[in-house]
């Protein structure tokens, strides 16, 4: 599979969020702004790439019967590294994402790629798979966060873009707004995917 094809799949036709509906807990919970979406997406991408790498290296050593516990230990290790690393560098972002960083461990996107891809493919392919899916995930969270931030807080990436005396739709930064926005995003992304796939319905 070509690199282009891989990215097209990860971003549109097989996007982890809008098509596979994987990892919805962080998706819905932290995307109250575009910046939070990017932060969460990149943290997840790092964990995904590293765990794909390590698992594809050790795929012939890990006994099939204990592969899930082994994957989880690998994933949890990288999540802890992200947690400590973020706290040491981007302290304010870490404060916002807070509780949801440790929860990357149970993001089924990561375990899903480990089980379905990295444990069966070469190191290079697994790395590419991690980068593509991670960025696809980040892309979806960025769009979701961006829409919610514009409608809910009248800003984009922290910069006010709607005149101050206009009322913003508060609902969109609250939890129900996440579900509503995601619903509309699914419709939109399905349309785009259909176009990319050609005319098959």
């Amino acid at each position, binding site marked *: 599979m070509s690199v282009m094809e891989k990215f097209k799949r990860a971003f549109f036709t097989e996007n982890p969020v809008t098509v596979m509906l994987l990892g919805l807990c962080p998706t819905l919970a932290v995307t109250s702004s575009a910046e939070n979406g990017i932060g969460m997406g990149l943290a997840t991408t790092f964990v995904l790439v590293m765990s794909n790498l390590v698992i594809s290296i050790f795929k012939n050593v890990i*006994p099939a019967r204990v592969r899930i516990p082994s994957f989880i230990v690998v994933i949890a290790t990288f999540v802890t590294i992200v947690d400590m690393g973020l706290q040491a560098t981007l302290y304010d972002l870490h404060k916002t994402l807070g509780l949801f960083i440790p929860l990357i461990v149970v993001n089924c996107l990561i375990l899903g790629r480990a089980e379905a891809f990295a444990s069966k493919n070469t190191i290079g392919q697994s790395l590419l798979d991690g980068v593509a899916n991670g960025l696809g995930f980040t892309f979806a969270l960025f769009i979701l966060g961006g829409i919610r931030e514009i409608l809910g807080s009248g800003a984009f990436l922290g910069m006010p873009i709607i005149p101050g005396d206009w009322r913003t739709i508060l609902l969109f930064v609250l939890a129900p707004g996440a579900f509503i926005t995601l619903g509309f995003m699914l419709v939109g992304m399905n349309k785009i995917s259909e176009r990319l796939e050609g005319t098959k319905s």
Partner: protein
Amino acid sequence: MAKQEESGLKIILVLVLIAGLAAVLLAYVNKVTSGPIAEKKRQETQRAIKVVMANEAVQHPEMPEPVKQVDFPAEYFPVRNQADQPLGYAFKVEAPDGFTSAFEILVGVDTTGKIVDTYVLSHKETPGLGDGMMEEEFKKQFRGRSLDNTNWSVQKDGGDIDAITAATITSRAFTYGAERALRAYETLKEDQ
């Protein structure tokens, strides 16, 4: 993935090996990051103390001391200005019963028992509603208030504090949190 049926010994060995490697890696990362993390936390505390003391704070201890003899958790930093004069205290108190959970605020109290300013250290209140407690509009009404000159509840409950629209619960919690800081101040003064 190795396909044939593995022996129990191999399974145990591999799991121990993986866990061991993970432990070594984490110990190393922890060693590298613990310094910067402590430094960031210290900077944040310093920034907060500056805010609640109207930027005059120059000297204060690294760690707060607990206020004893009060029936709620409270800690304080004695704060001094450039000329080494006591400015008052910065109290770290918990605002109980926030909308989602209790949250932590820092309240600067001057030597006459009046609030200088407030700062929210950590919270999980609703963005767009409860987090209005960090904005000037809400914060400014606390400056200069003391236990004597204020009825410490929100206007809805017959008090003096103008609550944030649609965030009465957060405002109420914040108000009680600020009052706690003043009560801690009174207790501290009686002790001396």
